């Protein structure tokens, strides 16, 4: 079934829409949630909440591509749950990815705590537009999809070590970019 046909089912308020959405994009949604939450029970809850969120959002939205749309919902829900349970000990891929970025943004220098997330988001988007495709792919897979290094290496037909080195250089570039833009001190 095409995305357009699935979206039409949502518009018709047919519950078959959820079934077809799960069949086509369920694995991608679960992967995003699992990488952040790190356990199956939370992942399953998050996936179900994602389908409910999609049900509420379509209509009026008619997203394209649909997979990006539902993965974004899943990520938003998973990160909310992740931070709500911050005290809980976790061991997810997301922990490690966030640690890397936190180190990059701190790195011994003082940084404004009340940093505006929207401003940072715009800066990261602008920064990503300056990268070549492969670097952008690696950054997005690591820090948006929260994929482990080995998986990214496999996807990009390279070695884990190469991905690690490239990510380090990308983070250095990002830090330099944010300093130049006056967003980091």
């Amino acid at each position, binding site marked *: 079934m095409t995305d357009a046909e699935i979206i039409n089912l949502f518009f018709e308020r047919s519950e078959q829409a959820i079934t077809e959405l799960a069949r086509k994009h369920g694995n991608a949604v679960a992967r995003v949630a699992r990488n952040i939450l790190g356990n199956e029970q939370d992942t399953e809850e998050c996936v179900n909440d994602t389908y409910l969120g999609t049900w509420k959002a379509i209509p009026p939205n008619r997203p394209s591509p649909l997979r990006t749309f539902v993965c974004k919902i899943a990520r938003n829900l998973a990160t909310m749950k992740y931070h709500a349970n911050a005290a809980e000990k976790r061991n997810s891929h997301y922990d490690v990815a*966030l640690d890397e970025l936190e180190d990059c943004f701190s790195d011994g220098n003082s940084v404004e705590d009340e940093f505006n997330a929207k401003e940072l988001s715009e800066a990261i988007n602008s920064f990503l537009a300056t990268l070549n495709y492969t670097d952008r792919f690696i950054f997005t897979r690591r820090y948006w999809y929260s994929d482990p290094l080995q998986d990214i290496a496999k996807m990009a037909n390279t070695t884990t070590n190469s991905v690690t080195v490239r990510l380090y250089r990308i983070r250095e570039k990002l830090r330099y970019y944010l300093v130049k833009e006056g967003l980091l001190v």
Partner: protein
Amino acid sequence: MKRETISMALNGLEDTFISEAAEFRPEAIQETPERTERMKTKRIISIALAAALILALGVTAYAIAGMLRSTARHNMPETGEFTSLSELKTVERTVGYPLTVPESFSNGYAFSRLRVDGTADYDENGEILREYYCVNVNYTDSNAAEILLDLSPVKEGSVIQGDDIRQIDGVDVSFQLDTYKYVPENYEKTEADIAAEEGGHFFITYGPEEITESKVASVSFDLDGVRYTLIDLTANGNSLETLGQMAGELIAASHG
């Protein structure tokens, strides 16, 4: 920085980046100076219309082609959106170049809004080659059809190029009509696609589930060190003539 802030910021990544990373497809992305222009224009269009189009103007040649890696939005003071032209003089002082931005054109397109954005060109190492302001203006007609006018300073060594250049009032104007084919991420190019791409006016954009095509018309010309580009994202048979007439009015207004 708080982890929550980093986490929230990552949630705001652009759909384009998320979609293109769904699958590793380096062959679908060609990093060329022309593409950087397209990316820049695409960002302008995305902001203006939230349309997932890649627009190739194909009219720019760079003497510095080997150096320029990319163009991106850049934090600069006094950027923002205006819903009237009453502040145009202030905007001119901010951007540092003259702006010919009429209230309306004789074909009925009237000013809707104007946006000033900071922009920077980067080299291979992420160093800024130059920073400048871009001005994006939206015009709409009584049927809510929209035409975009993009203004930016002409880059050193950049000249108007194209296979359809006409003179209007002594000014070289490049006319371009391009076809955009939107295809699913796993789409394999056909021989016809490859042949059409070689013609320079056919572009494939990956992402949507269904295959569709649309035409984009644009005209570009330089006036007083400023590049003007008029764009119709939903082109029809008359679009180039419409844009040409509007270009003529802009050129006449700047001469007047």
